[in-house]
């Protein structure tokens, strides 16, 4: 799977897109990102995760090849 990063999360991590080989749930991905990037842990807790352009719950098993996105609280409009 690939994970797209946006806005402050992208700036703090300094990367636009992450790639992971392992299979995992949305909740496991959250935990992995928090461990890997502790400085965004606070923002992560407030962020949504989208899988293939849909908001996803922590229990969802991420399909192989899915496009995942880390969505900090939105501020459009």
């Amino acid at each position: 799977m690939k994970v797209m990063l946006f806005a402050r999360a992208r700036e703090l991590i300094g990367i636009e897109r992450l790639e992971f080989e392992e299979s995992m749930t949305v909740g496991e991905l959250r935990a992995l990102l928090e461990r890997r990037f502790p400085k965004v842990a606070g923002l992560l807790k407030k962020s949504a995760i989208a899988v293939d352009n849909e908001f996803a719950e922590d229990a969802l098993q991420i399909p192989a090849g899915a496009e995942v996105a880390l969505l900090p609280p939105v501020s459009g409009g």
Partner: protein
Amino acid sequence: MIRLTRDVIDYHALTEKVRRGDCGAVVLFLGTVRDLTGERVTVALDYEAYPAMAEKKMAEIESDTRTRWPVGEIILEHRLGRLEIGDVSVAVAVSCPHRAQAFEACRHAIDRLKELVPIWKKENWADGSTEWVHPGA
């Protein structure tokens, strides 16, 4: 109809497009860039989107709004990129047979857009610093 664009939003054209002989009411909402946020002076905003999902969510909002009110036509358009003070960042134009419907449908669409659509803005403050806006974070 929904659209993301990097160009100036031609809200006059959008409003003309939603006018219909069977709709007695048109409501247009424009979001424009404010010069102040609290006490801080803004010089520009940068809008970024997750485009595929933003378009999907905007299309869902159009469809949800049409389900709830007798909408004749509805257009949601959001601008991306660098915007300066007074620029229109978002426009929602709705026509309905009657005015209460048009007000409610337009309000619903912009409220949902601000809640659900993956678009973010970065403040460019007058002191040269920048800050992504993430409500509640």
